[in-house]
């Protein structure tokens, strides 16, 4: 097949009955591989649910191609460009925030639809007209956290977060959300690479907060919780943090029962039609943190194709303001900035050893946990 | 002629491109001291090290070295030593950070009773200074240690490289006496610059010059022939004996 071509060719979309190409760029390997696994399981279940088992929208098959980014934005960008070059109009995935932030501009530059996955960074919301998200964002976590202290006025709140953008975003959100409600917010920061947390625990304890908000991700979380527990931080104040995937629950150890969790999702948090469908379809039959994200992504893809066909502008229109029943309940894509308003949960963890169960204490509706409207950037 | 304990044939050594030994052949008699002579830098040390397999990395050794029926080249050093080839290196190489006793203990072998009596009889100093760090010994004491640790085991042949180098005259005499007694039971291949020591100990002599054997024969005979000594060992040393 030697021939001369133009170096600027990209394949075109194809006719009516041609399959619709959807590219999923997410972590199959690398540090976030297990988030990626939940995402893809959720996506498959969602596609099944939204197409009623046919895998087709109208007479057009949804042809999903997957690419591994290994958590590296450079690989994700390459994969996205490859997919776009082959005529893919819809890209979804992005397990890590770094990937989401770098793929979003590519989508805008090439006018394709991008539906970000588990990446929690607030910056994806309002990134550009073509970028949507199928998961929650940090701000929604923080709003859920606020619900734990009732009246915030005059309360003392400490944010314990790791250095870097994730910590910055959480600190900023807490200052805005809880500080804005009248609380006095200060922060203790630690390097993400820290292995010994006693100095930080001491600082927190010395601050005597009414509420401690912890934003910590990564493999050292177990050690961090243990230290907070040992230094008596957990016993002396209300501690709120996000509930991570099931596999991580045992790493909380004894600390688990002393923490108030805000949760994006856990098995049993909701009992919607979609949740039942997802549960039935997902290998192992237990839902986890990021299954809803994949599920919602598939629902959004189907909606976009249904309403937009091959026209990306129409897809965008169709998704903006769309309200649908997802795994978590009623979800709404806010038209202004594409934030995904969705229920959030308060949870408790109980159990010991390797068997823990989470139970929902309260759930917030999508409107209650809504982030402020972001300026659409591009 | 009696079977030699060691025979070196056409030994050739190159190190980093230098052709240091260019076909050296000689034999070591099964009794007494065979002395390897030659000016500085002719390759005496190189010869001994090639025999025990310690040619530095990148070095190339050709030829044959046999002890009895056995070929020594290409066998690892530690095996040769265990088979009875004792080696006392030129710069003594005692382990400075270890004590005297530890230096000796290192030379012990599993399943063989070390001959401490013999060694301490030869060098009572070593027994007394057992707990001293070898690095703090005087040069002569270090030399005794270097010889002593080799004598802990039975050897079929001893290779000794300039044992009197840098030693005070009195110590030189002591070391010479020790070697004399050692040589009563084990054959020795000795590299020595000090002609007085050579005269006292040597039975046979091999003289190296420019990477080749220039002369072999009876050592005392060599020392008697002034002209020969002069031409082989350099002007200076000959003058000493004129």
């Amino acid at each position: 097949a030697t021939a001369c071509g133009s170096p600027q060719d990209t394949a075109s979309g194809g006719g009516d009955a041609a399959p619709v190409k959807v590219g999923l760029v997410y972590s199959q390997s690398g540090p976030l591989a297990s988030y990626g696994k939940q995402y893809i399981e959720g996506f498959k279940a969602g596609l099944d649910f939204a197409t009623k088992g046919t895998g087709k929208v109208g007479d057009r098959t949804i042809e999903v191609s997957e690419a591994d980014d290994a958590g590296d934005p450079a690989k994700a960008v390459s994969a996205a460009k490859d997919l776009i070059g082959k005529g893919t109009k819809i890209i979804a995935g992005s397990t890590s925030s770094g990937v989401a932030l770098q793929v979003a501009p590519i989508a805008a530059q090439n006018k394709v639809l991008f539906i970000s996955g588990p990446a929690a960074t607030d910056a994806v919301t309002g990134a550009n007209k073509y970028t949507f998200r199928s998961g929650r964002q940090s701000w929604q976590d923080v709003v859920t956290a606020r619900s734990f202290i009732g009246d915030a006025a005059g309360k003392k709140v400490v944010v314990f977060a790791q250095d870097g953008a994730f910590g910055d975003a959480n600190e900023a959100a807490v200052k805005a959300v809880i500080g804005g409600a009248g609380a006095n917010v200060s922060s203790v920061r630690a390097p993400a690479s820290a292995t010994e947390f006693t100095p930080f625990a001491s600082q927190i304890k010395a601050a005597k907060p009414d509420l401690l908000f912890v934003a910590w991700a990564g493999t050292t979380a177990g050690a961090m919780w243990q230290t907070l527990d040992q230094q008596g931080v957990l016993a002396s104040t209300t501690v709120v943090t996000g509930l991570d995937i099931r596999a991580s629950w045992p790493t909380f150890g004894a600390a688990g029962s002393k923490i108030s969790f805000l949760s994006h999702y856990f098995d049993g948090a909701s009992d919607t039609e979609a949740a039942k469908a997802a549960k039935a379809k997902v290998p192992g039959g237990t839902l986890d943190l990021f299954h809803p994200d994949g599920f919602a992504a598939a629902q959004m893809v189907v909606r976009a194709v249904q309403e937009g066909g091959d026209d990306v502008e129409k897809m965008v229109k169709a998704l903006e303001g769309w309200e649908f029943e997802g795994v978590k309940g009623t979800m709404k894509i806010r038209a202004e900035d594409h934030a995904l308003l969705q229920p959030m949960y308060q949870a408790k963890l109980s159990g010991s050893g390797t068997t823990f169960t989470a139970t929902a204490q309260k759930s917030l509706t999508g409107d209650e946990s809504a982030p402020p409207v972001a300026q659409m950037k591009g | 002629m009696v079977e030699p304990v060691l025979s070196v044939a056409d030994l050739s050594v190159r190190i980093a491109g230098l052709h240091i030994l260019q076909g050296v052949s000689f034999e070591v008699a099964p009794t007494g001291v065979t002395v390897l002579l030659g000016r500085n830098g002719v390759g005496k040390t190189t010869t001994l090290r090639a025999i025990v397999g310690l040619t530095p990395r990148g070095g190339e050794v050709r030829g044959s070295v046999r002890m009895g029926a056995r070929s020594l080249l290409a066998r690892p050093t530690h095996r040769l030593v265990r088979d009875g080839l004792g080696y006392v290196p030129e710069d003594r190489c005692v382990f400075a950070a270890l004590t005297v006793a530890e230096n000796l203990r290192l030379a012990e072998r599993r399943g063989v009773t070390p001959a401490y009596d013999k060694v301490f009889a030869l060098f009572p100093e070593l027994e007394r200074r057992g707990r001293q760090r070898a690095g703090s010994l005087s040069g002569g004491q270090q030399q005794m240690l270097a010889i002593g640790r080799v004598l802990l085991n039975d050897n079929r042949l001893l290779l000794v490289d300039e044992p009197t180098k840098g030693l005070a005259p009195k110590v030189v005499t002591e070391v010479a006496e020790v070697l004399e007694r050692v040589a009563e039971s084990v054959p020795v291949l000795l590299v020595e610059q000090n002609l007085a020591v050579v005269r006292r100990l040597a039975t046979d002599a091999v003289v190296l010059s420019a990477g080749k054997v220039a002369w072999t024969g009876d050592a005392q005979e060599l020392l008697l022939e002034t002209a020969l000594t002069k031409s082989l060992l350099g002007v200076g040393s000959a003058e000493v004996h004129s």
Partner: protein
Amino acid sequence: MTEVKSAEAPAPPAAVPDELTPGRARWHGLRPYLPLVALVVAAILPYSTLHLPGIFEGPLNSPGTLQLLAICLVFGGLAAGYDLLFGRTGMLSFGHALYFAAGVYGTDILVTKAGLPLWQAGVLTVIGGTTLAALLGAVALRTVGIAFAMVTLAFAQVGAILVARDFGGLTGGEEGLPLDVSGLPSALVGVTNTVNLYWLALAYLAIVVLVVHRVSGSPTGRVLAGLRDDERRIGVLGLDPYRFKLVAFTLAGGLASAGGVVYVLIVGGASPHITSSELTLSLLVMVVLGGPGTRWGPVLGGVLYMYLDHRLTAFGSSEAVNSLPAFLSHPLSQPLFVLGTVFILAVYFFPGGLASLRSRLAPLLTAIRRSR
């Protein structure tokens, strides 16, 4: 045996630089033009729709393939620049990633946060990266051998920590910093323009190869080759080894930061991956894989490594691998496992790197020729 080990630099396997040994007569007429021919072929490659199934996902002119090639080319250039230190001067630096990262983040920050036009940001960044290399090199070069390796590693680690700290939200911490393309020339934006990025990367590679080639053939290069063989000797000849090493270090740092400028355009953003010591280690792997001190070895090594790094993710999830039993398919689906293993095998079986293949195959080829 008793000297202090740290003073001993593990010298890279020496090789005679092409430039300084006369080529074989047969090649004399043709050889100077070969690189040019290669360059032209590489430049017109995007006009080909040749499809190489299994090697690339799409035809050669598809954006995905061009993007992959562009990344490979940049790393080919980076490896060639690193080889100026390692293969040609004999300096083992474990901190080269720092200058590359300085290029990537510098450009990104200047364009995205300060809103400078690209050319200004690029120039400033390269100047900044070069200066940084000069300053840190001036300190690190007071040590030699393993100590030098460790000091450079330490400096790079500081860079990594600073990026992770996200001071003033400049670097975006672990999330990285997407490049704001609104101010960029439109020819560099968009999937359809990937080919321009490819040409940019090719130009970078060509420039690095040219610079490295010219420098190693220059009077300074002669001194660098001398430094690799015997640093003491250089001093006794009346040349200051420190100055020359610093020049090499600075130059390599500058080339790396220029590589960063190109890379940030190709990838469209900066992420902290590139600050890790693993990147320096992989540069080392590339150079060793290709053949240190040779003109094309490091380039080939860099291209091949990056190609494998990207393609192995696809290989890992391919049907062929998944159909293997678990104890095979699981490790094989980890790109780093395959890469590490390939590297170990390369160290064993191709000690001189890819560049030595020709000379290693030569006896075989002559044998074949003779048998005919």
